[in-house]
């Protein structure tokens, strides 16, 4: 059976900029897949290509084998919440949903049902212009759920939400996956998604860095993949690393953390530069550190260094 979402060799070139570069990944039904990467990694462009809003330079993106533009009544298959989607400020929340319901042949009863689902019943007849960020986000979610789709695509849905809103969103996303939906949710923060996702697709500079399960990612974080150096010459060490374009963190005055580095690589570097070391140990950073080293360090770490 084809995957809920399958992306194959997807590429987007804007004039001279390659925003998405030969990207391939899959999203399974009944699971939440985090689509992670720093801002500017090409996440939004990828999602918009999936939804037929942006044309792909190369490659394909399909839902159970069909491109979005070929879906008969796509709202019944794929629901999406995108950044920079907007509402006509003078239109009332209920009217906004009615417009979509009418276009896709859904009864208006479904509109009220969906409004209740996201907790907007009380403001259903208010103009969207007066809505807060959180309310708009809920209205977007209501729009996405209107057709009871089997796939949900959410682009940075927690942007602009307060802590309660984020908590509500987490529960909401988990619930959607538990009912068998495939959920693809993008974020530039892994920490925000840690409690929500089952799988991760990590991208940087438009390229796929890693597709795996969250459990596997946690494993990597647990079993090292980073070095902790205690040294009185922290400044000099950081300078040396910077000169070699290796990302390092400096959590304490005499401690330097090098994510993704192995002792086989770091030992010779320390010896060559005659850096005094008081303590040297493997230390896997937290999940977020692994994520950071996988993305920001993606090109900074020279070849031969495990990443």
């Amino acid at each position, binding site marked *: 059976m084809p995957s809920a979402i399958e992306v194959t060799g997807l590429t987007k070139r804007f004039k001279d900029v390659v925003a998405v570069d030969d990207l391939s990944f899959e999203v399974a039904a009944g699971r939440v897949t985090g689509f992670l990467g720093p801002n500017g990694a090409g996440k939004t462009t990828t999602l918009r290509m999936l939804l037929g809003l942006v044309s792909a330079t190369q490659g394909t993106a399909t839902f159970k084998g069909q491109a979005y533009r070929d879906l008969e009544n796509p709202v019944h298959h794929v629901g999406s919440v995108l950044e920079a989607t907007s509402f006509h400020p003078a239109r009332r929340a209920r*009217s906004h949903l009615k417009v979509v319901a009418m276009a896709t042949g859904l009864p208006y009863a479904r509109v009220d049902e969906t409004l209740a689902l996201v907790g907007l019943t009380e403001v259903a007849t208010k103009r969207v212009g007066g809505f807060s960020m959180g309310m708009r986000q809920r209205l977007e979610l209501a729009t996405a759920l209107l057709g009871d789709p089997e796939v949900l695509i959410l682009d940075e849905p927690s942007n602009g939400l307060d802590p309660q809103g984020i908590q509500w969103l987490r529960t909401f996303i988990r619930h959607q996956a538990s009912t068998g939906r495939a959920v693809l949710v993008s974020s530039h923060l892994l920490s925000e998604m840690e409690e929500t996702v089952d799988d991760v697709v990590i991208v940087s500079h438009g390229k796929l860095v890693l597709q795996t399960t969250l459990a596997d990612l946690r494993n990597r974080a647990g079993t090292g993949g980073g070095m902790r150096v205690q040294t009185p010459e922290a400044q000099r060490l950081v300078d040396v690393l910077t000169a070699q374009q290796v990302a390092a963190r400096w959590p304490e005055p005499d401690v330097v953390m090098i994510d993704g580095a192995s002792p086989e690589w770091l030992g010779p570097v320390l010896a060559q530069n005659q850096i005094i070391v008081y303590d040297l140990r493997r230390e896997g950073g937290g999940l977020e550190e692994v994520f950071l080293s996988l993305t920001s360090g993606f090109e900074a770490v020279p070849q031969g260094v495990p990443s």
Partner: protein
Amino acid sequence: MIRLIRSEWLKLRTTSVPWLLLGLSILFTGLGILLSFLSGSSPGGRRAHGGAAWFTPHTVDQLRNLAGSGLGFGDLFIMLLGVLCITTEFRHKTVTSTFLVTPRRGRMVASKLITAAILGVVLAVILLIVTVAAGSIVLSARHGSPSALIHQLPAVAPGMIGVFVLYAILGVGVGSWLTNQVAALIATLGWFLIGETLIGALLNAIHDGLSRWLPGASASALANHTGRNLGSVLLPWWGGGLMMLTYGLVFAAIGSFVMTRRDIT
């Protein structure tokens, strides 16, 4: 397609713009008729190619002259509605949601063309009713016969309705191509207020009578289809209608083509 058209109508009626345009159309029609009553003549011939004669209550062209004074703005307003029904989507970025529902973008343009055309009929009929009603009052006050006005209705109405439908289509066509709302509105108003007169004069300098092929002149030809002798200034009424339709559909075709290839970011 019917669902899409009903959805488009829902989009329009849940915003204020169509109601504002309808209100203004009725207001201008009423004012035009009042003005003709006060001055004893018609302000018809708003545009050089309008071809309306001075109004006297006893000529056979009462209705058209009345219509010319009021409905003349109605055609601008219905075109603006056509422009706005598409450019508003880009201005408020609701187009993202629209294309998620209807990823085949040509269908979206088609549904807007049909919706605007239907509204063209509706607005023309409303304004004709307003004109006949207000005109009857004016004529009665000047001891004219309202029945003469009503008798002219079958002769005038088809042309007016045709003009409104075609201006609505032209508006959607322009909007689908010039999706920047401000640019589209300036282009439309500019053409109505001065553009056609200027370009027409230029064209006529090149070859006399060329200006009759322009959209406004084509509209006048269609509106005047009841056979007032306008010489060679205008196309025959059907020719004017065909030209208008061609302008509208060519713009819409270009617009759909460009829009289908456009990235919505």
